[in-house]
Structure formats: structure tokens, C-alpha cells
């Protein structure tokens, strides 16, 4: 089945099996391995990407063919012109990651979160990332990172 999607600003057309999940389409058809897979039940959020600019979706719960005609942003598209996105910078500054496996999904969830709520409270951040599991950090430094990014002067539109 043919599928046309725009990923990180680049248009792709591929012929794929209808049952292929979006996560594996990104990873295996497009070679964008920053999007990870950590469970089979839409629980962990390692696979979160942003759909149509503002919706955080779990790409393991969407068929690639459902993304036909849509735009997808993944972690690989965050850095622009050699400059880290303020969220990437903040995760680094605040030690918001350890093993790094949840980080891409966590970042993309936070992109959508800040788009809808540019100045979230701590509770709103914790609610906003509660669909993303992290086994290493205990979340506290991730919360601090989101706060730092929310306070950054220029929030690069993704």
C-alpha cells in the first residue's frame, strides 16, 4: 500500500504492508531510529512523535498508512540550523536523561505539551508527561528541564 508522509519537513512516499506500525515505518523504512519502541501496549511513550504539528501520538499505536497525507515530527527534526531546540538544551542542562531510551518520546511529548500550554505548572507538566515512562530519572529533572524550556526566551516552533 502506498503512503505519503512529510517527516521533519521532508516528503516521503513508500510502498508498505498495511499492518506496518508508524513506529517501524519511521525506524525501518525511513531509518529514523531516534523513535524507540519500549512496550506493546501504548504504555511507555518511547515512540511518541508529533502529528500535524501539535498532537503527541504513540507511533506504535498508529498504522503508518493512517499517517498518509499528514506531517510527522520526530526527535531528529528538533535541532535547527545547528542549534539545539530549547527542550533538548534543557534536558541536557538539567540532567533530564540517563540511559536516553525514553528521551526522544519524552521530548516530543513535551513539544506538544508546551505548544498547548506554554507556561505549565509542575502538576501540569507531571500530568502532561504521565503517558511517558522513565525508569532512570525519577522524572524530577525532566520536570525541571520542561520548566527551563518554558522559560527560555525563544521557543523554536517545530
Amino acid at each position, binding site marked *: 500500500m502506498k503512503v505519503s508522509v512529510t517527516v521533519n519537513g521532508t516528503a516521503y512516499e513508500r510502498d508498505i504492508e498495511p499492518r*506496518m506500525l508508524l513506529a517501524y515505518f519511521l525506524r525501518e523504512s525511513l531509518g529514523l*531510529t531516534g523513535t524507540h519502541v519500549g512496550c*506493546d501496549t501504548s504504555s511507555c511513550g518511547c515512540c511518541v512523535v508529533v502529528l500535524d504539528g501539535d498532537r503527541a501520538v504513540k507511533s506504535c499505536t498508529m498504522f503508518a498508512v493512517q499517517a498518509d497525507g499528514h506531517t510527522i515530527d520526530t526527535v531528529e527534526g528538533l535541532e535547527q540550523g545547528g542549534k539545539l531546540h530549547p527542550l533538548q538544551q534543557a534536558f541536557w542542562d538539567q540532567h533530564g536523561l540517563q*540511559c536516553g531510551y525514553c528521551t526522544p518520546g519524552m521530548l516530543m511529548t513535551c513539544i506538544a505539551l508546551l505548544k498547548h500550554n506554554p507556561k505549565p505548572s509542575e502538576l501540569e507538566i507531571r500530568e502532561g508527561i504521565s503517558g511517558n515512562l522513565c525508569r532512570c530519572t525519577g*522524572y524530577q529533572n525532566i520536570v525541571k528541564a520542561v520548566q527551563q524550556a518554558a522559560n527560555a526566551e525563544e521557543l523554536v516552533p517545530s
Partner: protein
Amino acid sequence: MTTTEKLPDRHSIGQSMKRKEDPRFIRGKGRYLDDIVLPHMLYLALVHSPYPHARITKIDKTAALASPGVKAVITGEDLVAAKLGWLPTFHGFDNQMVLAIGKALYQFQEVAGVVATSREAAADGAELVDVTYEPLPPVIDPYQSKLDKIILRDDREAKTNHIYHWEVGEREKTDAAIAKSDVTIKERILSPRCHPAPLEPCGCISDMNGATGRLTIYMTSQAPHVHRTAFSLVTGIPEDKIHVISPDIGGGFGNKVPVYPGYVVATVASVILGVPVKWVESRTENLTTTGFARDYHMDVEIGATKAGKVTALKVSTTADHGAFDAAADPRKYPAGMFGIVTGSYDFPTAFAEVDAYFTNKAPGGIAYRCSFRVTEAAFAIERGMDILARKLGLDPVQLRMQNFIKKEQFPYPSPLGFTYDSGDYEKTTKKALDLIGYDALRKEQAEKRKRGELMGIGVSTFTEIVGAGPGKHFDILGIKMFDSAEIRIHPTGSGIVRTGTRGQGQGHETTWAQIVAEELGLDPQELLVEEGDTDTAPYGLGTYASRSTPVAGGALALASRKIREKARKIAAHMMEASEDDVEWKDYKFSVKGVPGKSVTMKEVAFAAYTNPAPDTEPGLEATYYYDPPNLTFPNGTYIAVVDVDADTGAVKVRRFLAVDDCGVVINPMIVEGQIHGGLTEGFAMAFMQEIKFDEGGNHLNTNFTDYLVPTALETPHWETGNTVTPSPHHPIGAKGVGESPNAGSPQAFVNAVMDALSPMGITHLDMPLTRDKVWSAIQGAQKKT
């Protein structure tokens, strides 16, 4: 809030340097196992037993082999023919089936492997393997297993489910001391079965190259060298023909130490088919088949005088090891470091014993963010001390304070055979009490109790034991548990640093550079750290049990000092001074008594290649294999404050403070991050995480909707602080920290909830303290009154 005890000004150690590994991770450019794709690679899917105990009478491959894309179907009998049907377990007390042979011994046990051209084709093929089972009655409860009514392992000579008895200490003296004590407590305390569940599941790509005869295994491995040796011993392939590469690891927590059937089957498939074979488990496979943790049922007895001086401790444990004894413990220590169960207290005598049994559950018993059974031991003693305090009518902090090992008693020989290196438990505890405002909290609690509100304060003043370890006591497969470091300084003063460990998020690429930079006065940003490739890294035992800093950290410091000694010769030559007159001061070489005459390590490095001293070898490199003289003993005082809703059983952790003493801190930011993470896993064990089975042996927590790990919403806000009591024997005084918060915290939460419920006469509840369990206990207590 964080309060960090400041170290004197240092060049690199003690700095919260940002992590060198992060730039690739925040860009999605980490290289994890499943990111690797090799040409002509095939995929392996495994077939699992639906029954916890069943005879396998037939495996029909026909339909699977006819499925599109399927290249091979491998069964246990095929592996027996290849002499790989059974594998020895790490400490050598048992053998483990790779794929079920004749019998399945736990639900989800691996029964066959299907290799196909895509992950989907392999999964389709696995569905079509037709296995005929004759179900047998399962044994799920270790206390039932003990009765030997059904013998689970007919392959073993001894017709019993009992695996081993291990004991340490003085049984008779302890029994006598408890019998004579004014006050005694006895409680059965369970450390329930749980699972580390790192977010990246386990997997491998095995690539047998027919042209070179070399087997390359990309593998989610916390211990790549040990795995290389194990593969060589088991397959007979010479070790030089095996190359293990452990790429970026998405969390390990002990789960990536054992050898799993998937690794072996993928390797056999690659040998047979001559192409690379990838196996990546699903979350369900991870939770149901790979190394579980804990499952210790501990009968804890403590004796004390009326005044609250402890007299003796006895702990008798029934351990549920599942279908094989695959616990990743050192050979001489089948119950790991359980002997740390006397904790921070000066017991005149003690005795501990563990009896392990087979059940129809997955094997494991791995050290989940824990140094071999320390989490279980710390839970037992810290719960026991709380129960004793309540019986004595003493504040739990007061009971602890009056029984602490005093700082003058170090090095302290414990009654169960360890020599604690250092500690100042009173200082750590006083700091914690001050930071949290303990007295004010107790006043608030007294007032709330008058109003019938359930507020609880829980304390844990634990001692950890990490850094396995002295080779004379600890080995894996007979290999002494040393670790190693190799440092090469380039002509321009940058360098490459390699160790035998393999981090999984601990930040070694940063902290290892900091140690070397501190020792050599170099820039940590210009020291590249590499781990995980057995072709390039020196031999080491890997990263688990908080052993990296205590062991490899020591190797790094001592390899650096070897370099420094050689550099001193070159510096003397450069400054035209006698070597005896050259001193290392303020991170450079200078000539004693000649102000202003000095050379930096960077200058020496250049000279080492361009102008070496006449009698010295060119170059500037060193390797050091460090066998530590002792383990290290970090400690901490943790305090939890909870509010319990009597109507719903919900527990709100209002505050949690962790004051840790892990000796010298290399990077405070990373240490704090480790503590946050460990506390979150301790919280998870206390309130959420449990692997349960029904009476029929069905696994009840096969995915993240049933096996609950904390999200950001449940996770409390963590407060931290520290004290610094250096390890006297460690080259830089560090003790290790990754596991302290995990081993130290569950009992603080449970003690807090029990404190809240104590007015109702509730003494003990087993983890996890779910709402329904707490609510039922409150209901039961209210009915009684």
C-alpha cells in the same frame, strides 16, 4: 532542595559537569541494539509455553516452515543435537534449558524459535508452530514446593525441589541470646517478586561470518566480557573468534546480566544459516521470561533489652528461585551479600540462613538495582527495627541511634563476616533529622492523631555493601571480580579511556573522564570514554551491583597514577632535573625549590612522543587491573512522610528526604540523578510493582498495563542531602551510589505507612502497599474495635 557537602577545590572531581553522552541521546542518535541493521539480516521470534508445567509430547514444524519468509524452526531437541540444549547458570549450581526439552517448567517458557526474513514473518511463523502439551499440576508457592509432593526437576539427580541451604553466623548463640532477651519480635516479611523492566527490552544480533570464522554478537549486555567467555565455554568456539559489542543500553538494572535463550538461539541460527540473526524481545517476553528480582520470604527475629539495646538477630529465608537456579550471584555467595542484614547496628551476635526452592515460575533472582540481595536484607532489618521500636515504645530514630555502630568502631567486623570500611551513621542521621524537621513532624503527627488523621513518618538508616569485589571472595564462572582500565594519552594531550564495565545510563562517559582528568590534570572534555566492545576494552566483569565506581573507578585512578609516574620521568628530562626533585603539585610537575619551573601533563604528553627521556619507552599509556582489598559500605538515612486516607486506602507521600553517604562524590549532579532514579524504583516496589501468579500458575503482570511502574504523576518530589565519609581503601575514596536509594528506600515508605496505621494495631503489611491492601487492613482493624 539539595544540600551538598562541599569538597575542597578540585580540578575535576566534585564538579557537576554536564554529561558527555547526552548530545547524541537528545538528538535521537543513540545507537541501541534494535537500531542496528546488518545486510541480509534475519529475525528470530520465540514460541512460548501457555502452561506453567506441562509435558511436551510433540512439536510439529511443518506449518511454520511453510509460512512465507520462514527460514528455520529450532527446537530444544535441535539444540540438544548441537550440544547446546542446556547451559550452566552463572554460579554453577544448576543447568538451564535453552528451549524446553520434554517439559515446560513455567508459563511463557521458550519452546521453539522461528527465523524469518522480517520481524512480522517470524512472528507469523511462531504462531504456526504446533506444540502438543499435556498439562501437569504446577507448584507456585515455595512453601508447597518445600513439601516435595511434586518434583519439578526430574533432570536433576537429587529428587527434591530444594536447591540449596546457605547460612552464616552463630545459630546456637543467636537462638540462646534471643531466648534470654527481655523483648523479642518475630515477623514474616516478604520482599515480593518484581521485575526491573528497563525500557529497552533485551536483544541481540548474532553474526557468524563464514569467511573469517568470527562470531560477532551485538548484545544488550551489562557484562560483555563475561558473556564472551560464557559463549566460548559453552559453544567451544575459541574466545578470540567471539566479539561481543554492547551498544548503548536503554537501562539495565540487573536485567541485562544473565544469558537468555534468545541470545543462544539467535547465535545457533546464525551459525546454521550463515547470516546475521536479530532477536529483540517484546515487553511481554521481558516481563515473563527474563530475570525477575527478590521473592524472599524472610522470618525476622530480633532480641533486645528493656532499654532497647539489641542482643541478637536471626533471619531465616525461604527463597523462590523459579524453575532454574539462574540467580546471578557469585559462586561462594548463593544468597549474595545477604549477610549485610545486621545493617547499621552493633549486634553482639547474629545468624542468617536461606533455603532456595524451585517453583513453576521464570528463573532469575537477579540483583535489581541492588548488590546481590542487599535490598532484601536492608528491608528485613529496617522493618524489623521499626517493629521492635513499636514494641519497646521507643521512637524508631532513638532505637536506631542507640544501636548504631559508632564511627570509632570502623573498620567494623560484622557478626556475619563483613568488615565495614567506614561510616558515621549518627552524623548522617542527624543531618537528615535537621533537614526534614523531624521533631516538628512528630508534633504535627501527635496533633493529627488526636483528630483521627492518619499521618506516618518512616525512617530507614541503612548500610549498603557494594563493589564486588575482592577476587578472593567473589567470582563469576570462576573469574575473579576485578575490573580494569586502559588509558592512552595522545601526543596533543587528549586521550582515550576504556574500562571493563558497561554503563546503562550511569554516566560513565563523563565520570570516568573526570577521574582521569583529576589524576592527570587534563581536560575531561578531551578524554573519550569507550566501553562495551570486547575487542578494544580491557577485560572486566561489567556494570551491576554498584560495582563500577568501587572497582573500575579504582582501576582508573591507579592506571592514571601509572601514567603519572612515567610522566614524572619525562618531566624530569624536560626540566633537566633529577626525578627525585620533581613533584606533582597543583596538577602539574614542578621542580622542588625552583619557583616557576613547571610542565603540564599536556606538555609531557607531547614530549612522550617527540622527546622522551633517554631510558624510557615512547608513548604514554597504562592499563591497570584492580582487585579491591574490600567491598565498600555506603550508608544513608531516609525519611518518608505520608498521609493515609482511611476511606480509600490511598497513601500520599508528602515528603521524602534521602541523605546519602557514598564517600567521595565524583559528579554531584549525576549522583543526585542516580538517587532520584533509585528512590523512584524503591517507591515502585513499595507501592506498585509486583509480579504475581494465580493458583494455576498464570502470570498476571505481562505488560505495562498490569505491571505498574510509576509515572511522573505518582512519583513524589525528592529531597536530597549528603555527608562524605570517604572509603579508606578506595583509591579516590568513592563508595558507589547507584543502588543505595533502591536498597534504602522501600522500608522508609513501608515504615511510614505502618506508622500511620499503628494506632489501629496494624503491625506489618507486605509490599506493594496498594490502595486495596491498605484499605482492607484498615477495614479489618476497624471491625476488630
